[in-house]
């Protein structure tokens, strides 16, 4: 069941020039799956009319904590970055279908930029199930890499940077780990990166899920604004995604 909850801000930590981590508390925190997202209302921001969809970065059910990793992309997220401890945040959740959780196998999780947000929750859940996920993070430069230690607790963590300042140089699809064999790939990041990953997965015949982030209004499947083209026609990213198997999409790859 979907809920609207007023969360209390417990922490707002700036991670680099444009990313921040929010720790939010509510006694009513519902169960959520990796890959699901929330729709955040941003008050008192004159040009922010609609809610902002943001991936679930992590949850702590025992303590009622929801973690959101956010990148400043415009006025709405800029305003959100200024929120202070003890302020309230009105959130609609949980939304979206989430990633398919495998029972066995070797899995590669790829996050590009702020696309790492849902990857932590996924890696943590896979780790809890006894799987040993490999997480590959792609960034432009070393300063964009965040929360390395947190990720390191749950997976084998690898990096690429476009300028070679950390990890291997280039894009995630150029990383040497891709020479290994995988049973599944899970990916979230810029569309160009996800398409490159989808191309690799298709060539290698590996199951691959991607999380899309189309612009949306309601998050409930009512407004039909966020659709993506699939082999079965237009589907709502908010309710029929945001996670899609690449076989269902009509990407030219």
């Amino acid at each position, binding site marked *: 069941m979907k*809920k609207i909850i007023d969360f209390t801000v417990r922490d707002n930590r700036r991670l680099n020039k444009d990313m921040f981590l929010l720790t939010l508390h509510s006694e009513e925190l519902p169960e959520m799956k990796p890959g699901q997202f929330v729709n955040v209302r941003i008050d008192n921001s004159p040009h922010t*009319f609609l809610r902002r969809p943001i991936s679930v970065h992590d949850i702590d059910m025992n303590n009622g904590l929801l973690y959101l990793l956010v990148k400043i992309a415009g006025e709405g997220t800029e305003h959100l970055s200024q929120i202070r401890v003890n302020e309230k945040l009105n959130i609609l959740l949980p939304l979206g279908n989430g990633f398919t959780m495998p029972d066995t196998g070797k899995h590669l999780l790829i996050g590009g930029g702020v696309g790492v947000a849902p990857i932590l929750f996924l890696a943590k859940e896979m780790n809890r199930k006894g799987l040993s996920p490999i997480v590959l993070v792609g960034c432009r430069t070393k300063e964009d890499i965040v929360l390395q230690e947190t990720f390191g607790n749950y997976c084998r963590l690898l990096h690429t940077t476009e300028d070679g300042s950390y990890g291997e140089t280039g894009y995630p699809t150029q990383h040497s780990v891709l020479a290994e064999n995988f049973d599944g790939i899970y990916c979230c990041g810029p569309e160009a990166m996800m398409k490159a990953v989808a191309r690799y997965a298709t060539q290698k015949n590996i199951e691959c899920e991607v999380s899309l982030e189309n612009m949306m209004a309601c998050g409930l499947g009512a407004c039909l604004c966020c659709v993506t083209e699939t082999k079965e026609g237009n589907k709502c990213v908010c309710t029929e995604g945001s996670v899609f198997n690449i076989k269902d999409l009509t990407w030219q790859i």
Partner: protein
Amino acid sequence: MYGRFRIQYKGFNMADLKLNLNGLKLKNPVMTASGTFGYGLEFQDFVDLNKLGAFIVKGTTINQREGNPYPRMSETPSGMLNAVGLQNKGVDYFIENIYPLLKDINSNVIVNVSGATISDYIATAEKINDLNHIPAIELNISCPNVKEGGMAFGTNVCSAAEVVAAVRKVYNKHLMVKLSPNVTDIRAIATAVETAGADSVSLINTLMGMAVNVKTRKPVLSTVTGGLSGACVKPVALRMVWQVASVVKIPVVGLGGIMNAEDALEFLMAGANAIQIGTANFIDPTITMKVIEGINAYLDENGFTSVKEIVGIINQA
């Protein structure tokens, strides 16, 4: 003096929110606008559908429509542009798969009907006429996002009257006609559809607008233009509702930028008999319930016994 007398009874009686919209009985004046509330079912976690005056399910056409390509939406200051383009699975899908889920809801389920040709409108209306638990249709002659139809009918006095008269012949329940604001004089269109047999009019549909992405130097929407809705359109909508209410005898359903109970009261006072809530559902899925409570509280606090007493009250001397 009469007003003061009633104030003495404040708190003893709940105000009466019921109304009769030219034969369509509503338990309160709050409806949801087509295209903003899905089939209602999407909002069941937040709204008791039985408590709504009516809800209008999304635009339905004779055949399935995929709608326009993405991007279909652009946020604007205090509003949004959309160019969904009437994506829906067609009237037969609605009848087979959705209607059974809606028919036992104790509210008025109204189907918004759209078409590219008059025969499309007729065929869809005929099929919905056979559904016992659908007491009304809202004829959409005002969608700005489909090339071949919709708004083309609603922006011309003759074609608006023609399509309404044609549907009137085959549809014998309540016929609400949704008007376009993208016209020079909405009163002329409203009068024409009234004469052609409409039982009520609803207004406004979205205002045609556009947005440009200066980074890509391209239009934001795949269709270049789209329909503007949200808080920003309220003054325009309110003006048109007031204009139309002053020239037609049939009931007027007001919509456009209603974000809270006070906005809804403005429309009622300007002459709307009932209101629809649209884009606000996206920001607060519980907004319809809050507006019903807010209207009720206002009537109680100000000594009105029925919502009918405030309809068009601004025109009273």
